[in-house]
């Protein structure tokens, strides 16, 4: 019998029961909750007179609607405020293991606070009404986004009705080039397999380049798995995972810690495990990436030119390119390095961790924002990240360059708060989606790594950071 993949091990260790058609009840260890996708679920619970099955599985905090400046003035938008207050009330009624309300010192983006507080652990199942839950797969946890009906189902039953996914291995071997980051790896993978390439799959990332990534880098990579269509991304836990988790508030302690570490060491794909699909990339060939269109798969190395639809033989794809160029206000064949930006956003659950801010600050130090750039927002992923960055003096580097140093939250990744693009504005962004209107109606998003975003803020246009800075 062939060995098992990491995904199979995680799946099988959480199956409560299985129907004859393969539909399973899957036990859920951690339920992350934010304000946008939970209110209707709690309301459903209340209407049915149900209690949370295990409130101690819940880790919650508001992040999408919270402002990133003038916290003393509270949340000005009354609809946003109501949604955040509704979460406060729901957690008060139903309970939680961890709740950081708005303005709490540790509040932040849910996918940043889970790992940094040690609630995301290898071998667990993690769900959240948020597609970027895939982030937590970086720890060897089976983690994916769910809808609000499923949020209610997990609240009431601690299980999810689910079917096993296909398994894909994305193997990145070799040494990443100078200034090439996990974000570039993620975008290069999406460029290769497409935004639907992972539909129906859980992706395990392997190979020496993946093992070489820090935990922050692995989180960035797994975060973007959903942009490749796969709900869950996985990296097998190793000594870096253990090192990262040791001493975190909710990580196991004492004898439990030793037992946990021993258990986690079993969480890897067997050498003879079979995957349904294997994709291989050569790390050395991955260059800094920039998206040019309105889908994350519309991505190219920074040295390339924007595509010309005339060169695309497939009619569907050609129409897609034409539509994207029109929305993005770009002419075919424009060198990417000539694209000027109006705003820059450094933040989001993809790239707002300490390593991301350090990478951006390294480029910025001693330099100034280009005159043509209207606004550069630096939004740390959590209160803990913010304080650490300030201890390291990164905030000063940004402020001296003319950037804005903000309070933590989702911010301009999806512009549910006041941070947004105006119609026609162009942004270099470290977030995860360049969809039409994502950062504000009519806004134009180019996805890049933190160092590339910082460099664009300084130069006023995209630059190859391997040659400059």
């Amino acid at each position: 019998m062939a060995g098992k993949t990491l995904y199979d091990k995680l799946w099988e260790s959480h199956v409560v029961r299985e129907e004859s058609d393969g539909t399973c009840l899957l036990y859920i260890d951690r339920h992350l909750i934010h304000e946008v996708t939970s209110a209707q679920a709690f309301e459903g619970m209340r209407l049915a007179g149900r209690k949370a099955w295990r409130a101690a599985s819940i880790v919650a905090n508001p992040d999408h609607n919270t402002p990133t400046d003038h916290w003393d003035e509270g949340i000005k938008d009354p609809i946003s405020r109501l949604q955040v207050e509704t979460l406060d009330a729901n957690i008060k009624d139903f309970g939680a293991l961890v709740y950081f309300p708005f303005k709490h010192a540790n509040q932040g983006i849910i996918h940043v606070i889970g790992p940094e507080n040690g609630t995301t652990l290898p071998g667990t199942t993690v769900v959240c009404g948020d597609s970027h839950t895939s982030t937590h797969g970086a720890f060897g946890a089976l983690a994916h986004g769910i809808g609000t009906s499923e949020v209610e189902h997990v609240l009431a039953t601690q299980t999810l009705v689910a079917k096993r996914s296909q398994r894909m291995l994305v193997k990145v071997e070799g040494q990443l080039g100078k200034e090439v980051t996990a974000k570039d790896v993620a975008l290069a993978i999406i460029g290769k397999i497409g935004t639907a390439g992972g539909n129906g799959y859980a992706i395990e990332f392997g190979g020496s380049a993946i093992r070489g990534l820090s935990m922050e880098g692995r989180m960035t990579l797994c975060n973007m798995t959903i942009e490749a269509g796969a709900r869950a991304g996985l990296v097998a836990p190793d000594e870096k995972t253990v090192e990262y988790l040791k001493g975190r508030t909710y990580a196991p302690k004492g004898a439990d810690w030793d037992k946990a570490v021993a258990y986690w060491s079993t969480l890897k794909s067997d050498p003879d495990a079979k995957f349904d699909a294997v994709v291989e990339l050569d790390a050395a060939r991955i260059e800094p990436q920039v998206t040019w269109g309105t889908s994350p798969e519309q991505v190219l190395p920074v040295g390339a030119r924007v595509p010309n639809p005339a060169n695309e033989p497939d009619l569907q794809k050609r129409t897609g390119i034409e539509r994207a160029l029109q929305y993005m206000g770009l002419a075919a064949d424009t060198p990417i390095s000539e694209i000027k930006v109006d705003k820059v956003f450094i933040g989001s659950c993809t790239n707002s961790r300490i390593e991301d801010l350090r990478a951006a600050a390294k480029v910025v130090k001693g330099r100034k924002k280009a005159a043509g750039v209207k606004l550069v927002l630096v939004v740390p992923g959590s209160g803990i990240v913010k304080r650490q960055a300030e201890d390291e003096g990164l905030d000063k580097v940004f402020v001296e360059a003319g950037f804005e140093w903000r309070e933590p939250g989702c911010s301009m990744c999806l512009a549910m708060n006041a941070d947004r693009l105006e119609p026609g504005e162009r942004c270099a962004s470290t977030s995860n989606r360049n969809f039409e209107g994502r950062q504000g109606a009519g806004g134009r998003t180019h996805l890049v790594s933190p160092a590339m975003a910082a460099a664009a803020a300084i130069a006023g246009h995209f630059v190859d950071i391997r040659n400059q800075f």
Partner: protein
Amino acid sequence: MKAFKQINGLVCPLDRANVDTDAIIPKQFLKSIKRTGFGPYLFDEWRYADHGEPGMDCSHRPLRQEFVLNLPRYKGAQILLTRDNFGCGSSREHAPWAIEDYGFQVIIAPSFADIFFNNCYKNGILPIVLPAAMVDRLFAECAANEGYRLSVDLESQKITFPSGESLGFDIQPHRKHCLLNGLDEIGLTLQHADEIKVFESRHKAVQPWLFA
């Protein structure tokens, strides 16, 4: 949940691939704490010429006349015909809520994004995957024939064309059962509460630190 059994409905063609949930229902409408009332804002940025905000009365908003939902011939459509990877992006269930509230009960595409596909079944919407060549044919027939309708029958898993010709489609038995009967999945799962408790104590023995 509302049950889905069968419909004979007008088909509306949305000829774009990778339609994401931000396009289906833009972020500003996600601030609502209700499940209903999203229909008027479905595809808001494509459908209206002005900027939509929650609570707006849409009956007097300027329309983008060329957008397919605004064409008189597709008024009252119940079947949405579209392209690959429909519903990609965010997990927001507001997307199927908006689609259902607008009046669509069936979505036909060559492929769907996983989370969206799953969310449809929780809201009485039947997403049907058909081969790309068949979807091409449906787009062509729909364009050529005003008032183009299809019959969809879940029990027999069959789509019937105006010509009388019919075509089967796949659906997982569990999903079919829930959709046909409009079942509350939580109630079904809680029938297995004892099994969940047994699992939980076994799980606790293996990973006690998760329950500390």
